[in-house]
Every structure is written in structure tokens, then in C-alpha cells.
């Protein structure tokens, strides 16, 4: 305890001077006072009170959804463009003898793909050991193949499927992440997919902070043919999700997709807010089956920190990697999978309603070196 006291003392002295520099900021400003949630135009004028007869039909007539093609685009096809630009990146090492330069090239490729220093050194050290022991042949092609196999093996056993609740009542999938990674867009795409598979979907506009986030989700609800439950701007996100679950339960919907405001994982109070959202989403009749971290493929090493913090706060169950249709490789998910054991579930490859594909380790790893 003495030690703790000393440490607290150090902190007090350091912080007391620092704390007064500017005014405190402990809460986000709210725009308007909260009021009762309203139901978006996906189901026009549906009463918030649950259990009324016409409600079920209203879900059916929830607009003419955009068709999601039965054939989903493969990651391979969507990467065509980005690949072309980088084509033959590793041509330099092909057909030559294996030496230090070969390993340098591989290291460079991994580092440039945002794999991070730790992951890169680890997989390359393994590879060197295998070459020494004769397990891997001394040709660049064999080296590359072995490396790809190693990386793919990191995702062994993962299934890109999203879990559904086992009991009665709507399944809840919660989407979390930092600002601007594409949470709302991802929800729109997931909703369209689930609708195409015949499920009744309710979207919960839990981002009550960012201006017009609700409107953005509303557009997606229309596109996907899902019902939208909204609160007013600045309302408690937990209450919106609570209402959405109640609404879904009353109308016999299968799935609630809960949006949340983007938040940096360093903001203590906002992470607290998210914990509360999770607790509310868990409450019956809702069954929280997935907490999905949405991660931008352009993110660098901070992605691992994000994943750690969100995992610790709300028990993330899987990752959605967005914007992989650009030149960014999203290599940080290697560290996320390796260190935290979080499976990668889905990959976003564009702005269209159908631009969402299942994560495929082989394609992902191939793209790292393309």
C-alpha cells in the first residue's frame, strides 16, 4: 500500500498542475433532450406500443429492398484493380537464389501490408528455422508458399458465420468501432444480406451523437428493406437499443442490428457508455450473439490497440474488415487474430449494398503479397 500511496502522490502532483490547463470535458455535448423513439419510414407511422395486429404486415411491406445477388462477389474479383497496380511486387525474388535479400523482401512486403514488426519478425523467424531444418526448400517460390501457408494457418478453425441466438426472441448483433470505419454502412450491407436470406431485420440507430447518423441508417434501412428504430439526437443509445429489441420481439423479427456511435477507445466515459449498451442488449428477450468490431483496412498498428480495448470493454466476438477494395492490405488483423484470438468474419469491399463478403484466409493472405 505504501508503494501505491507514493505512486498516487506522484500522479497527484503531476496532474494537479496539468488539470487546470483547460476546462474539463467529461461528457459529450448533447444536441437535444431525449424523447420517445420514433420509427423510421421503413415502417411508416408504426406505433411504438408493441403487439398490435397490423405490425407484422408492416414489416413485410417495408419498402422494395434492393436485390442482393445470390452470387456474392469474391474478394479476389474486387481486389483486381488494387492488385493490378501492385502486380509483380515480389517478382524481384522469384527465380533467384534464397539469401538475406529474399528475406528482406518478404519482410518489406509484410511491413508494408501493416502486419507490424512483431508479427513480421515472428513469422520470418519461423520460416528461417524451417529453411535451416530443411523442411522448406531453398527456392523463393517454396519460401513464399510456406509463408502463405503459415499465415493462413493463423486463421485455422475460424468460420465466417455469424451466430444466431438459441432461445426464443430476437438475436442481437452489436456493431462497435472507432469513428469513420464504416459501422453504419456495414450494418446496411449485413441487413440486406440477412433480408435476402429471409430474416426479418430491425435496425437500431444507436448512434445518437453524430449529426445525421440516423438519417444515414434510414437510407440503408430502406435499401435493405429493414425496419428502423430511432431515438432523438442525443438520446441514450441504450434506450434506443432497448426499444429496438422490444419492437423486434413484439413483431416477431429475427434479428436486431445495433449501430453505435464511433468512439475512440481511449475515451473512458464513452467506453463506459458502450458497456452499458452491451448490458442492455443482453437483456431478454434479446439475445446478444455477436459483438462485431468494425475495423478500417487502412488502419495501422493502432488497430491492435483498438481491438484490445474494445474486447476488454464489451467482449468483441469478431471483426469486420472494411475498405479492403483499396490499396490497403489490413495486415494488422494478423496481429489481432494472433494475439487476441479474434476471428475475422466479414470483409467490406465497396459502397454498394452487395459489397460484403465472407472472410477467406487464403484470399486475404494472397492479397497481402499481391
Amino acid at each position: 500500500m505504501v508503494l501505491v500511496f507514493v505512486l498516487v502522490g506522484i500522479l497527484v502532483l503531476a496532474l494537479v498542475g496539468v488539470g487546470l490547463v483547460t476546462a474539463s470535458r467529461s461528457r459529450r455535448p448533447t444536441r437535444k433532450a431525449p424523447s420517445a423513439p420514433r420509427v423510421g419510414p421503413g415502417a411508416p407511422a408504426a406505433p411504438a406500443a408493441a403487439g398490435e395486429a397490423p405490425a407484422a404486415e408492416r414489416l413485410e411491406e417495408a419498402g422494395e429492398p434492393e436485390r442482393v445477388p445470390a452470387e456474392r462477389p469474391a474478394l479476389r474479383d474486387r481486389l483486381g484493380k488494387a492488385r493490378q497496380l501492385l502486380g509483380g511486387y515480389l517478382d524481384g525474388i522469384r527465380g533467384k537464389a534464397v539469401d538475406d535479400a529474399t528475406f528482406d523482401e518478404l519482410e518489406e512486403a509484410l511491413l508494408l501490408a501493416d502486419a507490424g514488426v512483431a508479427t513480421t519478425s515472428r513469422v520470418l523467424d519461423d520460416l528461417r528455422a524451417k529453411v535451416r531444418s530443411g523442411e522448406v526448400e531453398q527456392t523463393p517460390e517454396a519460401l513464399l508458399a510456406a509463408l502463405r501457408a503459415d499465415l493462413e494457418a493463423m486463421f485455422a478453425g475460424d468460420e465466417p458465420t455469424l451466430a444466431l441466438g438459441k432461445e426464443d426472441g430476437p438475436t442481437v448483433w452489436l456493431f462497435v468501432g472507432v469513428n469513420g470505419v464504416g459501422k453504419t454502412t456495414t450494418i446496411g450491407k449485413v441487413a440486406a444480406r440477412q433480408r435476402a436470406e429471409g430474416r426479418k431485420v430491425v435496425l437500431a440507430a444507436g448512434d445518437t451523437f453524430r449529426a445525421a447518423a440516423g438519417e444515414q441508417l434510414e437510407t440503408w434501412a430502406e435499401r435493405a428493406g429493414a425496419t428502423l428504430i430511432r431515438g432523438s439526437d442525443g438520446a441514450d443509445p441504450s434506450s434506443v437499443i432497448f426499444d429496438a429489441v422490444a419492437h423486434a420481439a413484439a413483431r416477431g423479427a429475427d434479428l436486431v442490428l445495433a449501430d453505435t456511435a464511433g468512439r475512440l477507445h481511449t475515451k473512458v466515459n464513452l467506453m463506459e457508455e458502450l458497456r452499458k449498451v452491451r448490458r442492455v442488449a443482453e437483456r431478454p428477450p434479446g439475445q446478444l450473439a455477436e459483438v462485431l468490431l468494425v475495423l478500417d483496412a487502412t488502419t495501422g498498428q493502432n488497430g491492435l490497440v483498438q481491438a484490445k480495448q474494445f474486447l476488454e470493454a464489451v467482449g468483441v466476438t469478431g471483426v469486420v474488415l472494411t475498405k479492403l477494395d483499396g490499396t490497403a492490405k489490413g495486415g494488422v488483423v494478423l496481429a489481432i487474430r494472433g494475439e487476441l484470438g479474434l476471428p475475422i468474419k466479414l470483409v467490406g469491399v465497396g459502397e454498394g449494398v452487395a459489397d460484403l463478403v465472407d472472410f477467406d484466409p487464403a484470399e486475404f493472405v494472397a492479397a497481402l503479397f499481391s
Partner: protein
Amino acid sequence: MFETLTDRFEGIFTRLRSRGRLGDAEVNEVLREIRVALLEADVNLNVVKDLIERIRARCSEAELSKSLTPAQQVIKIVNEELTGTLGGEPLKIRYASRPPTVVLLAGLQGSGKTTAAAKLARWFKQQGRQPLLVAADLQRPAAVEQLRVLGQDIGVTVFSEPTAPVTVARKGVGEAERLGRDVVIVDTAGRLAIDDALMAEMTAISNAIRPDYTFFVVDAMTGQDAVRTAEAFNDALALDGVILTKVDGDARGGAALSVKEVVGKPIAFVSTGERIADFETFHPDRLASRILGMGDVLSLIEKAEREYDSQVAEKATERLMAGQFSLEDFLEQLQQIKRMGPLQGMLGMLPGVPKDFRNAKIDDKDVGRIEAIIRSMTPDERRGRAVIDGSRRLRIAHGSGTSTTEVNNLLRQFKEMQKVVRSMGPVNRLVNGAKQKPTKGKQKGSRFTPSSRSAR
């Protein structure tokens, strides 16, 4: 927690025997560490290579100075090199002689263009200008609506119409002329650098409105790809500056360095939070320390600024400066600190805290015991007006569920602390100290260590 570079360097240099010049072997070892640190901070690999060569050249030239340890000297070189790369000529906005001054924002999806547009508008307003916002992002659902709401919050008119981005941009500038606005900020849809159609549209917008300033908006969390994206946007648009967003997170922001190297244009603004007011001009030195993993003091300050109740802090500071720091003040500060998260994490951010301290296992429950002890005291005891004798100590121990030994320890430690407080003089020095160069931060931190040592 990330070991600061200084710590790693100290380790390398303790083996350093020859004085006078840095040996090649040591330099190589140090450079390897720097390389890892820069890569971990998301500086692009090719940019890292260039930087390392420049640093190597300077290290081998450098005479060891008397006042600095070799580690400090290398840090100084690295820091100067980074600051130099990030800095250069700061951007000075020159307003068009024939208004309006046209500003165009471009960037990837989700980099924060729309928010940056509103923040920039507010900044121009503060400079005494009358800006107009133009929402030319017709792609993302509700992007126009988002800018409208933000515009309303800051009292800036937003122009848009559901036609085509190029048309909206052109008409927007016309609208600014009609309304007599002297600055017009055009927000555009996020796009990938490899999307030829959208990049062509971007060029078309640029040609239609002939912007005075084109800013590339980039997320501070961006990884290696920042270089490629910045290159592509620079080729298409001839950028004038960079706006770095989301720097309020804990990303080390190496992307800024990459982008600066590639584009060669200044980082004009940084976006430091979610409120519209969280927007400031760029300080190269702060980011340089942060990239090196030494800017944690600044993160700590920022955290304190956010979570600390300024009134409580102000009051405590006054008392501290008057040398009247009491247990009551201490308790109040403790509450504030608790709001900022686990102690262990915060301690890791302080430079100059000895390693064995930093690695000590800290149980936040012990903080609760300290609180309990202080709460079991009478107001007079807390304010130091009553002498806490044996029977009072026993009462306090009973009241807090601790032992008299623990109460004794706490009182003794507190007395030590008060001594430090008195010897420290005005706290201003502390505040300034925290904002100085990181190498100084080390000294600042060590000022605390005597009391810590005697405490053990």
C-alpha cells in the same frame, strides 16, 4: 506498455565504453531500435529507410557533448530530424484578392472530411471571415444532412442540391459570391485513390472551382497505405496542405510523417476531438515526440484535461502553491485520478518514473484503502488542524478497517509529500515542464524520485 526509446537507449549505451564519439556498433544497434519504433508508429517503411540514413549520418558526425548522455544525444538528433521533417514552412492562409477564397477537402472514406469541413468553417469564422459550406458529398447517405446539422450548430450556411458533385461545387462558389461570403469550403465524397471514375470527378470539381487551397484529410490512425493514397491524391489535385484527424486517440500518428514526406506540403490543421471546437493548427514538435513514443506526457495532459474537473484542480493548485496541501485536497485529487482509468496505465505514461516502479504490480484496490483511511478522519484531522495521536490513529484504523501500521504509513508518506510540495515552489514550473522537450521531461520526472526512494 511501450518502453520509451530513452529506456531502450540507456540499455544500449551502458555498454558504451569509448567516450568521445559514438561507436559504429552502438549506432547500428540504436538505429535498429529507432527503425522498430518508427515502424510501430506506422511511419511508412520507405520513409523510415530515408530517415534512418539521415540519422546515421548525423550520429557518426556528432561529437558527444558533455551535458548530455549518449542516449539523450541520439534522441535529440532523432527528435530534431523528425521535427524538421514534419515542420518546415507552416501554412499561412492567403486570402484571395477577389473573394471568395475557395477551399476544397478531399480524402478517403471515413477520414473525417465532413466534420473537418465544419471545424474549418468555425476556424475561419474565428478569424473574422464569413464562410459558406458546400456539401458536394452526394454519395454517402445523409452526408449533406450531416453537414447541414453541423452548419446550424456553428451558424454557417450550407449550400447543396441533389444534382451532381461538380455542379454543386460550381454553384456553391457562385452562391458564396452572391451572398458576399469571403471563404467557401467544399466537402466532397470519400473516395479510394484507385477509383479512376471518382478521382476523375475530383479533378473535374477542382477544375470547375479552381480552389485556392486543397486539403488532404487523413486519419492519424492510418497505416502504411497513407503514402500511396497521398501520392495519388497529390497527383490528381496538387495538394496545398494536410488536415490530420482523430489525433485524440492513442495512435502514434506516423502516417503524418509519411504524408508530409510524400506531399511535401505542410500539415495545416489537426483535429483533436469530437467537438467542433477541437481543431487547432499543427505543432510539429508535439507529434515528433509522440511518434517516438515519448509524447505520452502530452497524452497524459490531454487525458487530464478531459477528465479533470478544472475547478477542483484550480482550487488544489492554489492551495498547493500556498503550501497548504492537505489530506482533504489529496482525497479530492484521488477521486479525479480514479476517473482517468487504472493507475498502472497512467504511471506508464509518466516519463522518468524508475523502471522498477513502473513495473510494480499496482492494485487499484489499495487506492480504496487509502480513501477509506482518509474518510475515517474528522475534517480537522484531514485539514491538519488536529494532531493525530495514538488514540486517534486507533480510531481511524478501526473506522477504515485497516491497521494502525497502515494509518501510520499513510501519515508518514503524506508528510514526505508535503515536504516535496513545499520545496517545489509554484506549480507553474510543473505545467511548463510538462510542455517542454521530452529530454527535459526526464529531468522533470526525476525530481519526484527522491521522495519516492525515501518512501521505500
